[in-house]
């Protein structure tokens, strides 16, 4: 309480407004530095990076896979692989991915895409699996 009284005596309403704005700016900065995963994705061919794509720009592009071109599409912050016909095309089964650490792959094509950042598993999310046995 003494601190609050001291602040009130030592500052004008404008000072307090500035302090509030500054505090909010600092807190916003802290929040943004720790929670901005999934801003880009890396495309790997045979475990080597061949392309990096920003997820904030819609694009449709191709990389050369073992069996021919593999189409990669970015839309509204999400990314997916489009095939090439193969039941082992894990990427196609996965569909759109978003969120740090998520992957999609075309195994026979040798192509993997991974959204960059530390893998996130939301607390309390029953579907936030560390892995799926299949």
């Amino acid at each position, binding site marked *: 309480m003494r601190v609050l009284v*001291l*602040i009130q005596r*030592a*500052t*004008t309403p404008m*000072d307090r407004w*500035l*302090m509030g704005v*500054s*505090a909010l700016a*600092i*807190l916003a*900065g*802290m929040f943004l530095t720790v929670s901005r995963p999934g801003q880009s994705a890396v495309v*790997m061919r*045979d*475990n080597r990076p061949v392309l990096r794509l920003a997820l904030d720009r819609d694009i449709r592009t191709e990389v050369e896979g073992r*069996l021919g071109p593999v189409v990669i599409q970015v839309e509204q912050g999400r990314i997916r692989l489009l095939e090439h*016909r*193969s*039941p*082992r095309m*894990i990427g196609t*089964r*996965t*569909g759109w991915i978003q969120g740090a*650490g998520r*992957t999609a*792959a075309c*195994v*026979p094509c*040798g192509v*993997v895409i*991974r959204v960059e950042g*530390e*893998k996130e*598993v939301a607390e309390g999310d*029953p*579907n*936030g*699996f*560390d*892995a*799926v*046995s*299949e």
Partner: protein
Amino acid sequence: MGGHGVINRRVVTFSGMIAALLLIALARGFLSPEPPGIQSETRLQMGTLVTISTWGVEKGSAQRAMNAAFEEMGRIEALMSRFMADSAIGGLNAAPRQEFLPLTEELEGVIARGLEIGRLSGGQFDIGLGPLSDLWGFSREPPPDSPPAEKKLRQWLAQRTSVTNQGIEIDAHRVRLTSASVGLDLGGIAKGYAVDRAMERLEKQGVTSALINAGGDMRIAGSKGGKPWHIGLRDPRKADGVIAVMDLTGPVSLSTSGDYERFFLVDGVRYHHILDPATAQPARSGLMSVSIQTRDSMLADALSTALFVLGEKRGLELLTQFPGSAALLIREDGTLLQTPGFIAKPKGAP
């Protein structure tokens, strides 16, 4: 003077407040740092997608450990893949029958384990089905969309010599195949073995909490800071669906074999990649998938295939030969059978 004093006091107080806020922000980062969470990496290895995740390990150390683990899996693939002509298995399969080739202690151990499980399964788990797998071609690109000619399957059946019955001979660190109908295919056991060795490499690097998932063959060490690893079990008939949930703390291994991994449909009949050596056809045992929890990944890998081929009754009899192993079977009608010791609950259950 008095006016300057008030202004100075205000500037000092204002600056002090901003400094205090900054200090709080810094202290949040430095005094109570978050323990390192999950570090993970995914690579294509052994013909599948392999993800290694560590928990509680700083990024640089985790990366070094994961690199070592992936390297180990690559070494085993180069040794045991039947699709690599220069691998030990590729060389053995290509060699003239009856010709002895040298056998490393490591490979001898894996083959011996496969033969042991094969004998206990009455020959239904068979590591010598390379030529039959080639006939069906599930590993081909493009994949098959129709069964092989019936005549070819009958020929293979007529010539078949089981590896558990003189199809393979091991003698003083040498090995030979005795029949053209036999070719080693360690697909039902080598991936599990590689996962075991990869986990050893992680542990040697000081990692105590980790999960390795090699296309469904998993090995788990420790927990995530006291919380179990949260694993989903795929619904056999919904590609993106999960039918059960497993909260597992290591050490434990988990492997699932199902009729949905590689398959095609002809006139509503499902032809999948898990072959029954007694019929030369995809196994029709009344099951859609089998999951095994046990101590090591090689055993889990082999048992999930063996139980799938054997079916419920004979499969569960085989399971009793391996204390500490438990199974979850999903029957063709969608019902689940969970043996004691298998940790799982239906998805959505509290």
